[in-house]
């Protein structure tokens, strides 16, 4: 055994117990215990959660299609020289054979002034398993055993802007790109009979019955983020061409198929007083 952390002083039989060395060792201990250095606190993070979400407006109001905050994934190629980022993210453009008319992105961003760790991203698409559903996807198992249809065209992105060309999205650092995953693996509650009604409910009672839909939970991501980095986290939904098979599930308004809840969980280090 030896002292490793607090002091460099070592004492052995057969050597002198020098007063100066003893005093040095004791002062090292005193200094340490009076103000433990940050790096010697093993548990020095606490979590923070960025919560967002809404219940979508359920219809069109005149010329207002009410898809906000979802916006189209492709920026126009004109005016030439004016549009900088025709592609708003990386790796999401799908071949036309998929019959996707357009993809829609919901994109949020923040910038921490200290290093943080992105621990998790949770996306909840809550749908109604009850008899008069407002938020649901056609093409799945019908009421009374509603299950959402199996889809594989939702995408989740977490990217960090380049510090050198921050407005060029082609240079973004791709931290997370989850795509082509089957929603069947991320269904909220697998048994529709269970999903229909909780054993014990909370107040107020929800309109749509129990809880169905998707719960995509990306955990233990362990993504370190530098101070002042510009972090973007985005969800992509598809809008299919009329009469395409995908439109059967997503309808002409894919942003209206679920009540959205999203949480980005961060780990933030403790700070100096």
């Amino acid at each position, binding site marked *: 055994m030896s002292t490793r952390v607090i002091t460099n002083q070592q004492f052995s039989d057969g050597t002198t117990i020098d007063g100066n060395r003893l005093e040095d060792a004791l002062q090292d201990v005193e200094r340490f215990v009076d103000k433990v250095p940050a790096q010697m*606190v093993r548990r020095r993070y606490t979590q923070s959660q960025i919560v967002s979400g809404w219940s979508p407006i359920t219809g069109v109001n005149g010329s207002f299609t009410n898809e906000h905050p979802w916006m189209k994934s492709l920026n126009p190629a004109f005016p030439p020289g004016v549009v900088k980022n025709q592609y708003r993210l990386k790796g999401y453009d799908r071949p036309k054979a998929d019959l996707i008319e357009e993809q829609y992105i919901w994109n949020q961003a923040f910038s921490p002034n200290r290093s943080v760790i992105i621990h998790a991203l949770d996306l909840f698409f809550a749908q109604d398993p009850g008899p008069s559903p407002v938020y649901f996807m056609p093409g799945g198992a019908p009421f009374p055993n509603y299950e959402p249809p199996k889809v594989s065209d939702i995408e989740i992105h977490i990217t960090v802007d380049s510090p050198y060309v921050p*407005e060029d999205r082609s240079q973004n650092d791709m931290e997370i790109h989850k795509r082509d995953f089957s929603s069947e693996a991320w269904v909220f509650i697998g048994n529709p009979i269970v999903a229909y009604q909780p054993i014990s409910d909370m107040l*107020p009672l929800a309109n749509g019955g129990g809880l169905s839909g998707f719960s995509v939970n990306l955990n233990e991501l362990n993504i370190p983020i530098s101070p002042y980095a510009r972090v973007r986290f985005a969800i992509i939904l598809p809008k299919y061409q009329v009469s395409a098979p995908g439109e059967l599930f997503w309808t002409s308004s894919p942003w209206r198929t679920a009540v959205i809840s999203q949480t980005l969980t961060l780990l933030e280090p403790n700070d100096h007083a």
Partner: protein
Amino acid sequence: MPKIGFKRLSRGVKLLTEHIHSQLNTALDRVTNTRVDHTNLESGDALTRMSFSWPCAHDRVVGAQPRLTAAFVLPAPQELFRTDGIKLPTDPGYILDSVSFSLDTRDEPAAISDAKVGPPVVLEGSLDFDGASDVKFSLQLHGRKMTHFGNAETSFDETLLTIDYPNLGFNNNQVRTSPHVRENLGIQLAPYSSYMLVVDCFDYLSGSSFLGNSILVTLTFRSQLMVRDSDKKKVQNIPQSPELFALQQYGLPYTNPQTILTPGATAPIVAEPSPTDDGVQGALEKVDSSVRRGLEGGYNEQSRRHAFETMLTDAGYEIIAVPMWGNGWYAGNHLNNNVALLPYVGPAPYSDPVVDRRIIPLHFPMVVHHVVAHLNFSGGLPPSTATYKYEIGVGMGTGIRSDSYSYRQVAHASWDSTTYLTYLIDDFHASETAGVPTGTIRGHLYDIPLIGVGGTGYRAGQGMPVFVGKTDNPDVVRSHAASAPGGPHVPIPSIDGKEQFLEVRMLFQDTAGIQNLPATETMVGYGGHWVYIIGKKHVC
């Protein structure tokens, strides 16, 4: 804690055990038994991040000025809460450190256009490069003394922060300020005042037919690390940890106190340890090895202690801002027909409730001490008809890819226009001119009491703090928890020890028909409502 205050060794003094072994024993006891508190840590402050997410800001509604608002409070944890609202110097305070602001402009130096009939027809969400010079915002933070603590005025009389985000930050091709963070603000916030965050979109949106999509503001503030909650008599639903000794269960300290073996009265002081004497080197090694892996405390993701604890203050202040009904409604009755577009609304007179719900995953455990709601009536007056009702609830739930689906209530309140004063803790609007219904910032803060009894807060009789966190099988056993405010302990085996998420629900209903609301009144003000879950989180 005070400094440990070792005695200095003076030249010529006879070396005694009190110079070495006793002093090292004091240090070892502080680490392994008493544990180290925040005053003895180089980084003794926890960071709290409050995030406000608005899906959309627009200018569709006549009479509502496009200013997004979120009023909030930062009440002290229950054991530190003072019902007279007087903060003493020793009470916890909060230092606002940084603000981050961003919105989505489709990654271009442009405004985002709202739908226009034209000609020319413009689709909602289109890019408007000509409008880039109009993209500008102002972010403000105001404070006031709360109605609950005797303030009869209704205005926010203290402006703590104003940050302008000019158009230069949004119309530049090379660098734009979205997102952008301002730091080192150093603004002190108090636990018994209320605050209002305002994102003033007036210059950008007023009369412009533009949109402000995905506006996200995050505030970070520092506060001292605190002692975590423990004891089954003081915390509801806290895990037992049955494998530990009784005095270590239910979150009580889990320590391994150590001592230095001191030589006898006439024994020589030696360097090396022996069975009866740790020796100088052995004593130093004991202290060194107690901190070698770093100080321990808090909980892991399964709500279990990591190891023998050496941190006394291992909890930080937590406040989670949950947006409700924020997707661009201004559901003041006649001014914009969005009432018909509210979810679940049927043909008039629709007398059933409408409910919004948010689901928040539990990754690391926290202890809920207070729940507060901001009901935002900006652009109108609060509902006054006796048939109109609000109901707000927070619950813990289980069911994500599991065999059973269940909830337990954590907080709940329900009121109408005749009973709202029971829960009201702050009443404010932007000017002293009473009865100005339109275009004004206006709102209420409500205390939503926790389940059970025995707690402290804005209202007498709310329940004790409630632990919420995932656990493994051994920690399914929890301390008693109630199922309603003021109610007794009720076991709910389908959820006890199994929570995976928090769910927040907000309901409004008019039994005379939701379209019954008078024209000057609003049920969802501009920018929507907020619910705040306030408590302690733990180091991890």
